[in-house]
């Protein structure tokens, strides 16, 4: 089944960033990553056409973009170094990166925990994980088998659990669900989604910054 953001009109509605909140939210996310210093190695996981990759490089970071779609990568290549790969098998050594940015990718996975575990593997200790993504408003809801966006979206407690289980500590959370509503309205307006199909209406959109904890002796 085609993913919603592969719809030919998606780009025209959502802009180059492809995700709710668009370029504005990407800028905010990058701006909040104040612990990075020039030259830090940062991965844009699921970089798409590369808007955020470009932003990161502009700020002086040694950023690289990763995506599975060669189509997107062709475009992103003009913004910075890119590599083709899967989120579940990141082509990086353990503890080799200072930061990972993941915009609206976890909710598209059937098993988001797996991907967060990979992020934990490639991040150095005290490395930063910056995420914006959908979350399920229904407490304890399950989106198994859901079509379209957000099949991997979990409720807030579920997300926190995934982060903590993989050794992250959440240092910031912001709720940007109003951007999602805007986004849903625009997609319906453009005819990309039908009103009833806009499952994003019952979801929220959040921003998280999480630090990889120093590893202790395992249990």
């Amino acid at each position, binding site marked *: 089944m085609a993913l919603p953001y592969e719809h030919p009109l998606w780009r025209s509605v959502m802009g180059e960033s492809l995700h709710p909140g668009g370029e504005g939210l990407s800028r905010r996310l990058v701006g909040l990553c104040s612990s990075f210093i020039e030259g830090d190695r940062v991965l844009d996981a699921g970089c798409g056409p590369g808007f955020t990759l470009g932003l990161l490089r502009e700020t002086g970071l040694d950023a690289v973009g990763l995506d599975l779609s060669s189509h997107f990568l062709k475009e992103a290549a003009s913004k910075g170094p890119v590599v083709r790969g899967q989120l579940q098998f990141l082509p990086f050594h353990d503890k080799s990166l200072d930061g990972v940015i993941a915009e609206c990718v976890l909710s598209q996975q059937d098993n988001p925990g797996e991907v967060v575990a990979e992020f934990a593997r490639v991040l150095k200790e005290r490395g930063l994980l910056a995420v914006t993504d959908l979350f399920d*408003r229904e407490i304890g809801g399950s989106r198994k088998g859901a079509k379209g966006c957000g099949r991997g979206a979990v409720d807030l407690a579920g997300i926190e659990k995934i982060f903590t289980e993989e050794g992250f500590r959440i240092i910031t959370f912001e*709720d940007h*669900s*109003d951007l*999602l*509503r805007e986004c849903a309205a625009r997609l319906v307006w453009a005819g990309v989604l039908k009103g009833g199909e806009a499952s994003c*209406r*019952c979801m*929220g*959109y959040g921003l998280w910054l999480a630090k990889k904890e120093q590893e202790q002796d395992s249990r």
Partner: protein
Amino acid sequence: MEKEELKSYEQRCIQEELPFCQAACPLKVDGRSFCAAMAEGRFEEARKVLSRAMPLPEILGRICDHPCQEACVMSERGGAVALGKLERSCLERSRGAGTPLRLPLTGKRVAVFGGGLSSLSCAFELLKKGHDVFLAFDGEIPGGRLLSIPDEILPKEILGAAQQTLERMGAKRLFGEVPEGAGSQNWSAVYVGVDDPQLADHVSGKDIDTLTYETPSSGVFSGGYPRGGRASPVWESADGKRAANSIDRFIQGASLTSERGREISVETRLFTPLEGVPHFPPRDDPVEEAKRCIRCECRYCVRECPFLEKYKGYPKVYAREIYNNFSIVKGVHQANRMINSCALCGLCETLCPNDFSMADLCRSAREEMVKKGIMPPSIHEFALLDMEHANSPRAAGSRAGKRRTKAFFFPGCQLAGTMLEQTEKLYQYLDGVFQGDLGIMLGCCGAPAWWSGRRESLEGLIGKLEQVLRSEGNPPLILACPSCNEVFRNYLPHIDRISVWQVLLDKGLPEGRPVDLPLALHDPCTTRREQGWRDSVREILQKIGQPFEELSFGGETTRCCGYGGLQYMSDPGLAVEGVRRRLKESDNEFLTYCSMCRESLSGHGKRVFHLLDLLFVSSPLEKTTGFSQRRSNRETLRWNLLGSSGLPPEPWEEQRISIQDSVRARLEERHILESDIKQTLWEARSKGRFLFSPKGTSLVSSRIGNVTFWVEYLPGDGAPEIVNAWSHRMTLELVE
């Protein structure tokens, strides 16, 4: 909504309470899930259900004294479900899982004395928790009293196999006497199963703590004593399991008593309505017998309400969702639609054993939404504008009685709107009866404001009514509409209210015009708590000789017609579903005494009479009146009874227009009034803005309030014929 408020709502809803079988079982076996699996022939699954609660189900399942069966409500419908037999069948047709897993080993040594079921159960549970268990019993295989049970019921191999299971789990055999205290032989704890005949006298039943299974000796626990003078296998097993829990806590130094009430309590607050459950005697075949289980749950309210059914939950869940809705700071409030879709009719409260009121919950949630500014603006707007019109000078007003005002007649805006002729006749009749000392008040009681959570608006409106009443010395109100009655009961408590029906009975009925056919009597939902209203109506029907049929969901348990709570605005489909269900309840035509019920139920295939039709005018409306006609009726009534309001007519009112029935139906659905159309035509004409098409129609547009209307019409010499109309709320401008 405060957390305490949420809790108090939640605890009224008993849907999550245990089914009767499970509550009565000391081990809390989930009889409901067990029967569900058995009914589908999924025996391994059924066995798993047993294993979750029972230690060693292969033993207990064959000999259980099944208190679950005694509690089964199917005893009222042919016979309790034969759970004992079903468990046996399940064991015979399944193998069960292998040796259970153990938690990491604790290294703590526990001695379990006795070969009876309680000791075996205790040993099993302690082994699962990772403790080092030493089992002491006499003879080759354990069993105690169980060894004397005939083989057909409990084959000895089963007991032997159970011993092997325990050994595979790490149990060791112990020989010796029960020590004085646990510490004396370096045991972390000791269990003594007095269901083993050899140990029956070792501890007296009254020395065993019923909650913790402690005995006076330190570290020594005991269980398996008779219940009600008899040995009970299920209690023996339960004792062993619970004692193991106590021992585990004892070893960890944790409290033996905290949060253990649920383990033991046999009470459940669940209520299962049995209406409609057929009588069926027990069946022999286990799968067929399991199908007799009705999966006890409450959901009484959900079954009877299309709104509760639609959201696939039950009141406890809805209370939580509504609470969560308000804790969202920024973002989409998912529960908005649900909150606005309740008809506020009160049926759920009446059916619920604990009076859970979705009406109270939703109404106050709506008020909070309005206060917080998150109530969607369009959802109730049309109804509120209608209320405004009903209270505007053209439609509202009041007049005192001739010499004094013995009472005020308040017909209400919907009666005035839909039954103009009958309202006038009724007023004239009452005026005669009161010899002119009857006041009249025309207007809306404020129900739409109350239902939509606009408390301030309601209070303002009520304030004005209060003034008029006070100026005449607070005489009683004669009401024709039970919704007005409910509003005034809550917001004008110091004013006496009397139904027009009671007045007619007291002062003399006009000559009735009954219909030959029996009519199904629909009580409006707002008469749910007004026995007086319902009784007077029935008395009138009897007096005038009108045959009528009582509906099974009538009186206190009457259903809503879909108008209440403004449900027809927020979810018209749901309202129609309510109407459908109501009309299906009888083959007869219907009769009611609320004009909105009549309006709501009409037009769906049955004639719906209003009581006033049988008293004053005898031809019931075949069609509904419609929003536009209601407004003009109110203005006409005002004019007829109170004279001109003094306001000049709007410039577009005189414009005549012609509308075909099919088009009228569409306008009604889209909430487009004739006055909107006329105003649009007039404004377009004065501004000179219109479009025209080759087929001869013209198209005009105008912004009225928060809505832009579009009207397509065929101009002509006479009245323009309206072909189509639509509307939207968005505003537009050219981008240059």
